């Protein structure tokens, strides 16, 4: 690289007060290496996978380079081009490995040429490699849990321990999911999906990101109502995916949806960690920057043209909420109409249940209840806590308090989230509307 070494941001010249100088300096240096890792790891692994042809090998090479950085940077300072340093270190290790293998000659030439050309520094190449990494991490040969773990690990830069914490599962379980996924990907070519497969493959990518976000937004289990860190990780992934697929309306649709939903996170939890539902949220606490970004992403979908897909439709619904300064100003007829389109485009009992809520607001609780009642026969919803919760709310608004309480008791039985259970139990004992 042309630029000379810049002064390293860490170790800091003066140790933190109250800490032993060595400790503080080492910790800062380590944190600086980790920061570079967060920034560079996806591109590094992507570039290495193109080189060595296997995502598992590539990740190990990248990890080796990280270990080397952790050894060298604290003493020598962060290099001027940290990404380039990690890449060339990993490549040299790749050559060492290939030398030990039988068919090394052809590969060696390939690797040597790559190093000479400095190809990974070309932005187009990098974006292309990252896009391949996005698709391979969400490849259909993998189980959903493997896709989720691999995506967070390879594209989100999360450690196995961080993923385990985020999903409340033991660390070895996540480790197994990742190694099983890597094994399953052996021999899977590192390439962009052919045009005919693109819609399905893109769908898998967006689904993984959506799933990660949802687990943070309404945790299906555990003591916390939301896990904002996981939402933030998903949002970062959604931005990355929209960035590498700028012409795909649904990539922007999902991004818009997540930006808008995340904008409500600050208002979604009360002072004691209790859930605060949309009608009761203090909208002044909504994140205006995320709302602006969400509306911009939705405008991008519109500019790309064509019919809205399921994510863009959900984003349009979230945007209708975002535009209402108070709950009373919500354009419920518009939201009910959007749900009508959504259940046509992408039929789902959960979307139909949400439509029941919207119709209940637009046309009154009896109209909403009629839709919700029809869903009682739906097998997918027999253990879904929000069906009785929605029915309970509509029944309460119709003054059918005893039935409403029974529905909320049922919802409390079904939910795996402690905070949500407390909310439902409160409504099961005190039947007042809006509880």
């Amino acid at each position: 690289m042309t630029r000379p070494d810049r002064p390293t941001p860490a170790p800091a010249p003066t140790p933190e007060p109250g800490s032993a100088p060595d400790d503080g300096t080492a910790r800062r240096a380590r944190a600086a290496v980790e920061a570079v890792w967060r920034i560079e790891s996806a591109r590094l692994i992507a570039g290495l996978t193109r080189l060595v042809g296997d995502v598992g090998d590539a990740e190990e090479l990248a990890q080796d380079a990280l270990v080397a950085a952790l050894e060298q940077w604290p003493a020598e300072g962060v290099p001027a081009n940290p990404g380039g340093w990690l890449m060339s270190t990993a490549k040299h290790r790749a050559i060492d490995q290939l030398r030990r293998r039988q068919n090394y000659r052809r590969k060696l030439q390939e690797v040597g040429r790559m190093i000479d050309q400095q190809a990974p520094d070309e932005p187009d190449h990098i974006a292309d490699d990252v896009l391949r990494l996005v698709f391979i991490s969400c490849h259909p040969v993998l189980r959903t849990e493997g896709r989720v773990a691999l995506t967070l690990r390879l594209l989100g830069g999360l450690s196995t321990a961080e993923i385990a914490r985020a999903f409340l599962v033991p660390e070895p379980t996540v480790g197994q999911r990742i190694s099983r996924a890597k094994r399953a990907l052996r021999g899977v070519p590192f390439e962009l999906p052919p045009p005919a497969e693109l819609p399905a493959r893109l769908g898998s990518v967006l689904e993984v990101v959506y799933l990660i976000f949802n687990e943070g937004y309404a945790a299906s289990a555990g003591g916390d109502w939301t896990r904002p860190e996981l939402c933030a990780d998903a949002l970062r992934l959604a931005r990355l995916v929209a960035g590498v697929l700028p012409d795909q309306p649904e990539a922007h649709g999902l991004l818009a949806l997540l930006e808008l939903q995340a904008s409500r996170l600050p208002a979604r939890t009360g002072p004691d960690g209790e859930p605060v539902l949309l009608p009761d949220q203090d909208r002044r606490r909504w994140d205006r920057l995320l709302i602006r970004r969400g509306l911009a992403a939705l405008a991008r979908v519109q500019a790309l043209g064509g019919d809205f897909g399921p994510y863009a439709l959900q984003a349009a619904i979230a945007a209708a909420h975002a535009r209402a300064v108070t709950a009373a100003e919500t354009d419920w007829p518009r939201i009910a109409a959007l749900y009508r389109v959504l259940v046509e485009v992408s039929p789902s009992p959960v979307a139909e249940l949400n439509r029941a809520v919207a119709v209940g607001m637009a046309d009154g609780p009896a109209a909403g209840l009629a839709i919700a009642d029809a869903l009682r026969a739906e097998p997918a919803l027999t253990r879904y806590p929000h069906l009785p919760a929605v029915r309970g709310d509509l029944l309460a608004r119709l003054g059918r308090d005893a039935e409403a309480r029974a529905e909320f008791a049922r919802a409390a039985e079904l939910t795996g989230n402690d905070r949500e259970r407390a909310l439902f139990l409160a409504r099961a004992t005190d039947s007042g509307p809006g509880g």
Partner: protein
Amino acid sequence: MSRYLMLLHGTPPASPPPPDLMEAIMALGEEATRAGVLLDSQGLAPGGVRVDLSGGRLSVTDGPFTETKEIISYAVYELRSAEEAVEWASRFLTLHRDRWPGWEGDAEIRRVFGPEDFTPSGPAPEPPGAG
């Protein structure tokens, strides 16, 4: 994950900004946007106006304010640690150093309070080792 505001203060040399610096800044901004970490950034027009409250009186003063380095631009990032913010700021300043000789300034990094900082009794002090 926290939000960080980066304020660029600087004293530009008399020469106009080199076009390749502007190009490099755009490329770095695009990279950070694609990575999903840069949420917002804008350049600020020089000059400015200040509204002061002092001794119970409001007063309005036109800029530029020569006693401080001018704020040139701002950027809002969403990152996992302050070190990540330092890394992006270092890259940004390195572009200036390599492309506009004589440019001096600093990138001030401030973590933005998030909902996690507010307890019922108000903003909590930053926990040690927050990141």
